[in-house]
């Protein structure tokens, strides 16, 4: 691998993440992030295309004559809501896009539509709630978005059914940590942009910026089919549920990952058992180069790996994640040191990627 750019990618990372975090790209409408991605990779790509679903596939040719192809993926979309109807009082009824808990929407400000109109998910004043309703989580179909329109006609001039909305959260650099919306997976997108711009590998390398991960790993499946790589790496943000035990609890044994403990290697999740050889390769490089890393606890959840692994005749895939607290809420939190560790590990481990069996090997 040779370093092609003299810039300091690590220093530029928070700024890039800010741009990506504040862009709005709820699944199926990834336009804003796609534009940012295209701007950021076009000068480094030997081949650049946007496929029929909207995935951005950027390729850098390899230095070796061994024309193997390796893919790395990060998804551009974020969870959010979709406007499904405009009611007579000018309020908007919504449905979830992706795994979004109605409880984190209640009483939050939103950006509505591509023009980012301010809106708010109202909450019945606590004074007027019946006792039992105070303890009961709000249901999605009881949520309404208020954009300050007094009638259906007034609202219809501003939005239409199918428009999407997401949390109105400005990015903050907290000194050591980054706070923002949609860090799942804009941090992964930023990592992939940096990785792509700063590395040329022996193999042909395609950075796949995928669509519709949050609604079922949809973009990655077609991207993997089209690229047909010998191996794939997924760059993600995975939950860090490393909160302290509550009173009465002894130890938090289901933390998934921990903030500040380095890049996370996946072993198993609900859609993928990761091949041992790839996990061990990344762990060995991290250990050798003193890059902090941790294992994501085997458990539920999933990512584009599940969409990639079982395409065609099978594709070995690994997920390398940055731990993120409070993902799928208005503001997730990641640690910058983990982001940097993930970038360094992805770069070093890919540069020394062992040969993958291309077609079924004979014994």
């Amino acid at each position, binding site marked *: 691998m040779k370093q092609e750019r003299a810039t300091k990618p690590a220093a530029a990372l928070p700024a890039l993440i800010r741009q990506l975090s504040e862009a709005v790209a709820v699944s199926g409408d990834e336009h804003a992030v796609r534009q940012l991605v295209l701007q950021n990779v076009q000068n480094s790509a030997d081949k650049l295309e946007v496929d029929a679903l909207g995935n951005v596939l950027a390729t850098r040719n390899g230095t070796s004559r061994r024309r193997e192809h390796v893919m790395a993926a990060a998804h551009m979309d974020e969870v959010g809501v979709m406007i499904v109807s405009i009611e007579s009082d000018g309020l908007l009824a919504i449905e979830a896009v992706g795994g979004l808990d109605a409880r984190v929407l209640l009483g939050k400000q939103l950006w509505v539509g591509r023009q980012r109109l301010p809106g708010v998910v*109202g909450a019945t004043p606590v004074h007027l709630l019946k006792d039992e309703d105070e303890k009961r989580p709000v249901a999605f179909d009881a949520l309404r978005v208020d954009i300050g329109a007094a009638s259906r006609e007034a609202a219809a001039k501003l939005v239409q059914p199918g428009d999407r909305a997401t949390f109105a959260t400005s990015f903050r650099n907290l000194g050591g*940590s980054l*706070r923002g919306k949609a860090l799942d997976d804009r941090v992964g997108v930023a990592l992939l942009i940096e990785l792509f711009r700063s590395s040329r590998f022996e193999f042909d390398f395609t950075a796949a910026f995928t669509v519709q991960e949050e609604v079922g790993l949809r973009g990655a499946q077609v991207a993997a089919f089209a690229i047909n790589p010998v191996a794939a790496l997924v760059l993600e943000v995975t939950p860090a549920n490393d909160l302290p035990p509550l009173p009465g609890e002894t130890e938090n044994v289901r933390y998934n990952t921990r903030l500040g403990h380095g890049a996370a290697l996946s072993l198993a999740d609900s859609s993928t058992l990761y091949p041992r050889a790839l996990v061990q390769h990344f762990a060995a490089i991290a250990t050798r180069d003193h890059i902090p890393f941790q294992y994501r606890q085997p458990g539920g959840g999933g990512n584009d790996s599940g969409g990639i692994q079982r395409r065609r005749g099978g594709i070995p895939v690994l997920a390398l994640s940055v731990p993120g607290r409070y993902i799928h809420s208005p503001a997730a*939190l990641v640690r910058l040191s983990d982001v940097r560790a993930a970038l360094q590990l992805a770069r070093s481990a890919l540069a020394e990627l062992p040969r993958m069996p291309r077609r079924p090997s004979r014994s």
Partner: protein
Amino acid sequence: MAPRKSIDLAAHLVDLCRTAGLSGHEAPVRNVLRRAWRPLVDELSGDRIGSLWGIRRAARRPAGRILLAAHMDSIGMLVTRIQDSFLFFAAIGGIDARVLPGALVQVHATRAGGSTALPGVITSRPPHVQSADEKRKVTPVRELMVDLGLSAAQTASRVEIGDLIVFAQPPVRLGSDLLLAPALDNRASVAALTGCLAQLRGQALQWDVVAAATVQEEEGFAGAYSSAFAARPDAAIAIDVTFGRQPGVPEWKTFKLGEGPTVSFGPNLHPQMGAALMEVAACGLVSIPLRNMHTPVEVVAIADVEQAARLLARFVLALDGKFRKRLTVHA
């Protein structure tokens, strides 16, 4: 007669909403008001627990005295325990626990001296890691924490138990007519007081007017009692917010935004504020409709705040000797 100076009430209200002023800790918002009121009144004073009085004197003596009272404190939270890099907290005032997970907050950290506003977020657990039981409940406040994104050591060196936590939701215009902000309960009413004083500026008054921004309403109406006692008014009007029309609440309990404030006289309108004032004076209540009360995203119509200011000013200008006599007859 000095020219009447108009002020931008919406901008003033945004200013008030950006400023912290939790119950019992109203100093920052009091300072904003002090600056705004100084050119509008004859005298600024206050009571011993922190209420601010802007006093306009009548042109002639003897004169009646009217108290216009709005509480300036808002709901919020304070740090009760620090564990690693997480802050457990308690509510100040009637916070709705349902809206807390994922809310953006600021912690006014005092451990390193002074007060530094640190951005943070209230914890939430993503659907990926929730058990079936968890999905069916509202997380109680005692199981929520504030995360500042700092290490345990950084957190311990900056934050002190008792530090205040406020919602960091910036005020924003909703459509052309509405304003969204935390603490509109009751900064909208305080802004109406300012608007009233601005309208009265340069006008000769027959009654003394005491505009009072009171403290600790959300924690038991302390300021209303003390201001009412100390100011010894003949009549009083409380300005507060009331429930705006929104889904999930019956129409008969709510008022439409943008159609003006509600007005009522008598003892039982605002159960406690009214009662407090009624002990010393004839009392009225002006209320500004507000959606999403006690959440970080309260919403009012700016026109209602302006209308409340005009209404108060007109009422005060209409006061004369006869009104005082009428009150006495009734008493």
